[in-house]
């Protein structure tokens, strides 16, 4: 080693130390435990009281714990709009987060604040729904395909003819827009299928129940119902109103899966399109890998949804085996997203982050 090289090596060491010291100062509250770097994870969610989102948050906590490199999970979770979510993300930046996992309330409104975060070296992962900011990572179900696959199944069930009700999510949020686009694309191939009514459930149980009551009393002629995931509520409304079932498309929610598996002889025909909430944990796993440079990923990672229907014996047995009585009825039956998540089902149910 020449003296010049030695000099350079020393300089590199000094630089590394300075960067390290700066990072510790900048991130303040990061105890480094057992030699491994401990990261702070921020989570931003803007829909409370929704089983799917609760499971998503639990999966992030579980993955944070399982990863062993996270010291703290800071959660900003309240019912708010894009302006509120911008403030929440800024507060997470201030909290010293190294990875921020967001379920975005708008595709474009968060771009400026995401850019601010990524400029500071924070890895931002949008899960479940997409954002248009290119420096962010997007880990989500292919929501266009979600809409398309379910609508296509429903149209085929109806023999390409009839009226369907489209029970959407929250108007204007990216996943709702994408699913609607998928549904519209699928139905373009079936000119005799008509969307007779469109509702926004806001992905909440009560509005969906009320909308079904309104539909029953309005006398609208319908032949099938497509839901954006508030599904078992719709089935329950058919049961309590004593109305004959029509084919219903929902998601892989635990209670809906159970209903598809058990109510077939009562006349319920339906399909569950997968949309796993542990996408939150998967997003964190991707974010941590990017941060630790252990793996590189594309900026957009899409899961392709599957359709589980109860029209065949094989489908029914699949639904029966997938139903999981140990999980909350409004959780999804999916407790992990392989190969990304590494926690166990017990971790998810415990819903505990690193202590």
């Amino acid at each position: 080693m020449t003296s010049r090289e030695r000099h350079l090596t020393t300089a590199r060491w000094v630089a590394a130390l300075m960067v390290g010291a700066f990072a510790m100062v900048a991130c303040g509250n990061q105890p480094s435990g057992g030699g491994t770097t401990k990261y702070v994870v921020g989570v931003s969610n803007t829909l409370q009281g929704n089983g799917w989102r609760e499971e998503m948050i639990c999966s992030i906590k579980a993955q944070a714990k399982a990863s062993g490199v996270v010291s703290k999970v800071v959660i900003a979770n309240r019912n708010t709009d894009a302006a509120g979510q911008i403030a929440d993300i800024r507060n997470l930046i201030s909290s010293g987060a190294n990875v921020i996992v967001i379920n975005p309330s708008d595709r474009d409104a968060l771009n400026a604040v995401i850019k601010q975060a990524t400029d500071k070296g924070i890895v931002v992962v949008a899960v479940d729904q997409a954002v248009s900011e290119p420096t962010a990572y997007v880990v989500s179900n292919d929501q266009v395909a979600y809409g398309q696959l379910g609508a296509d199944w429903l149209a085929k069930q109806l023999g390409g003819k009839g009226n369907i009700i489209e029970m959407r999510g929250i108007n204007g949020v990216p996943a709702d827009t994408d699913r609607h686009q998928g549904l519209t694309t699928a139905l373009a191939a079936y000119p005799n299928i008509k969307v007779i009514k469109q509702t926004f459930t806001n992905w909440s149980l009560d509005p969906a129940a009320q909308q079904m009551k309104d539909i029953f009393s309005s006398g609208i002629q319908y032949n099938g119902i497509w839901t954006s995931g508030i599904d078992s509520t719709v089935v329950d409304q058919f049961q309590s109103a004593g109305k004959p079932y029509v084919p219903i498309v929902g998601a892989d929610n635990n209670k809906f899966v159970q209903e598809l598996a058990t109510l077939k002889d009562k006349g319920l025909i339906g399909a569950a399109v997968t949309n796993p909430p542990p996408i939150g944990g998967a997003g964190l796993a991707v974010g941590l890998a990017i941060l630790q440079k252990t793996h590189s990923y594309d900026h957009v990672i899409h899961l392709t949804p599957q359709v589980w229907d109860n029209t065949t014996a094989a489908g029914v047995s699949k639904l029966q085996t997938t139903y999981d009585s140990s999980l909350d009825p409004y959780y999804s039956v999916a407790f992990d997203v392989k190969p990304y998540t590494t926690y166990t089902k017990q971790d998810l149910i415990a819903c505990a982050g690193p202590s």
Partner: protein
Amino acid sequence: MATAAAAAPRTSGIRFGRAARRYGWTIAVYSLFAVLMVVTLIIKPDYGAFEWNTLTLAALPLAFAATAQTIVVLSGGIDLSVGPLMALANVLALRAMLGHDLGYSLIVALIVLLEVTLAGALNGAIIVLTRVPDIVITLATSFIWAGLALLVLAKPTPGVPFDFQNLAQGSTLSAWIPNALLLLLVIPLVWIPLRRSRAGLAIYAVGSDRNAAFRSGVNLGLSRVLAYAVGGFFAACGGLALSMTTGVGSPLAGTYYTLSGVSAIVLGGVSLAGGRGGMLGPVAAAYILSLIPAVLIYLGIDPNYGQMIQGVLIVIVVMIGGLGVVLRRA
């Protein structure tokens, strides 16, 4: 005021009492804000310009929503359509600004302010003409404005010109004086001249005792329409603030601001019975209500407690305020 000044030595106690009555709540709200800021600084010693800017950005639309509600409540009314009026301003602005420069956007902003002021005036005019209670009419018009906003723009759309966004997001003067703080100057610019004018006095008079105001020769209808019109103006400011802070137009933008605006004015010492209160309190309350979620995030407290803490705080402040009123009467 002149006579009071001349007789100052004898009546200073009375004047102090009057000042305390008039500004007591406002002082209390600002003290609460100061205490919260100190707590925040203790929790987060590295609180800096970035965090301060976060607060000013979060509070900006809420402050305008609160201001819009304040003027209406002062006149003895209530406006449940503040949120939808904000959404309407927000989508009208986006539609017209899309793809234009700052100068054009500013002209659009002025036109939107005018349009939504007229919408507010229409709220007031319908109430005065039909004599149906304010809460019923504004509940009905809230659906009308919300529907109109959806007709203008069916779904959230980006495209607010970058320079226009920077009017709120930037920090032109200094990092500690963000533009989002300076934009609040619109409130005193409109409010102080109005309050000092005959029309402003009439709004207070109508709000505190409609009969007495009528017998004193105040034009009740005109005063109430004016209050709703100014409310519409501030709601439009709130909608434009959302355009600036988010960069998108969204027909559902105002959803959260009707009720949180009412929270802010209650916390800010505006009597929901009308005639009492000012603008300083609600603006500080908007800052307090925006600071609480930030503090919870800094502390890492379960976010589900956030709304509860907010509610408890309002109850405590209102109880203390009510106690003050009772003690004064005793």
